């Protein structure tokens, strides 16, 4: 969907109002969506789509995806979560995924940062170094 410059500008303004104390306020998001649906301003679909994207990107910043080759036990999960909360000043939502292609180890993604300690990643780095 083609989003106009104006729609992007409006979405940016709405996003500013949505983020409070560095976090997305779900109540404000719901309110913004409801008002947009109700008032249907010019190019509202574009605004909603751009706003949706900005909200998704902001939420990704406080969402961690932990990938591992096998399912993690409770103890490991607690340790990983504690480490992540410490690194990112708390309030991270954590999602666990099992990705057998990793062979072993773990890969954590928060926003666009990736911490790769998987065997697959290490092998790739070894290949890179040896050439």
């Amino acid at each position, binding site marked *: 969907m083609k989003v106009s410059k104006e729609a992007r500008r409006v979405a940016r303004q709405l996003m500013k109002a949505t983020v409070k104390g560095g976090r997305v306020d779900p109540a404000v998001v719901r309110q913004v969506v409801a008002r947009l649906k109700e008032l249907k301003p010019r190019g509202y679909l574009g605004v909603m789509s751009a706003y949706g994207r900005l909200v998704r990107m902001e939420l990704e910043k406080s969402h961690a995806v932990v990938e591992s080759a096998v399912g993690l036990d409770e103890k490991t999960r607690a340790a990983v979560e504690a480490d992540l909360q410490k690194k990112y000043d708390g309030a991270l939502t954590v999602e666990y995924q099992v990705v057998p292609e990793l062979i072993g180890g773990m890969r954590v993604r928060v926003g666009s*940062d*990736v*911490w790769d*300690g998987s065997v697959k*990643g290490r092998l790739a780095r*070894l290949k890179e170094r040896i050439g």
Partner: protein
Amino acid sequence: MSNILQELESEIAGLKTSVSKSNVGVVREIGDGVAKVEGLSDVMLNEMIEFPGGLYGLALNLEETEVGCVLLGEGREIKEGDEVRTTGKLLQVPVGKSMLGRVVNALGQPVDGKGDIAAEDSYPVEKIAPGIIPRQSVSQPVQTGIMAVDAMIPIGRGQRELIIGDRATGKTTIAVDTIISQANQNRAAEEGRLKDHRPLYCIYVAVGQKMSNVARTISTLEEAGAMDYTVVVSASASDTATNQYLAPYAGCAIGEWFMDNGMDALIVFDDLSKHAVAYRQVSLVLRRPSGREAYPGDVFYLHSRLLERSARLNEDNGGGSMTALPIIETQAGDVSAYIPTNVISITDGQIYLETDLFYQGIRPAISVGLSVSRVGSAAQTKAIKKVSGTTKLDLAQFREMQAFAQFGSDLDDKTKKLIERGQRIVELFKQPQYSPLPLEVQVAQLFAMQNGYFDDVAVDKVEDCQEKMTEYLTTRKDSLMQKISDEKVLSDEIVADLKAALEDFKSSYKG
């Protein structure tokens, strides 16, 4: 054997505990050699981005939610949703003396099938030009071997001299002749025939040209033995617009290595019109706002930052230099178009080639009136300066008078003399392609012209006389020629010897 095993084991041990942090993004859109990537929050401008399959891209547009990357390859297998990562590196090319004799692409990878290049170093493609302090003014000549250029539009080391003209007017030939001349001089210096010569290494950058043309140029350079001192950077018409846009910068980085290491380099950009077109394509697919002739707003900066990298460094900085010969192709002789005016204003002079002159058989078809060298005269060899002082003026006056002479034959003696001299100078400056003349031959011929030794030779015999004179001087007066080449000034003694030699030649010459 055990060493390599130990090395491997230590590498593995190092990796065992390591967790790497990287910055990633997701491809949202791909097409026309451009990928829009979401994420990549830590990306730098012009940073290399790694795509799946070992393909690299260059981050050119950093926007609020997206990064616009141009792909440095085909990228047919990239699809939406693919993960990409930053590398923390700016685009670099291999540089060094081992590049000489090789043909490389815009990324510095060899394309001549002669195997890998063991480069001494690597340089970033984009680099800020040397500032004011490390520079010094141009004072050493680049002997192009083209008499018309060396006599009237001298080029100095560190200068930027534009070669401009319509299609098929001999622009590339001038550049190739210059490269061949440098190779001849470098070889002569190595063999001890040329005193106090600083070797000049050449880089030929082919942008958006037909592969056949590039192959022909390379074979010409090989035949003349010039490839030993030359690097060819090729981004032909079949390469992506990104590679065509990067090739001149890559060539420039290769030249800068020579300059930074106290050596002299000459770089030919063939041609910057096609470079601007490639950049326009990249900018349009990146959806940057377009301006005049649909070129982006920074097309001036595109060429100014490239050509500003040519410089002559002072002795504290090694005393190296990089001379640039950019080429611009005009449409129907229009020098006032957008790109030609930009490059004319950036460079330190231009050699303007005219179609009319070319078809009149005056080759190189240099238009004396429109060609100029703003800084080169300071670098001109004293001997050439002495014998070519009034040549440009004589020729300009001749062109003016020639128009009058067409209307009637009642001309005063002075005008007649001027026209006759002019006709002979025009003949003298005609030169076949790929045969640059050494300095001493140029000096002798210009001296002969200045002192009237050609006045009694019929205009259509000037070329023949010139040929025989060269043969006579190089075979029978080689010690005199060597003396001119060594001293590079016309002392009274040399003038007397030269006069005697020319008298002797004229007495035996039957025109």
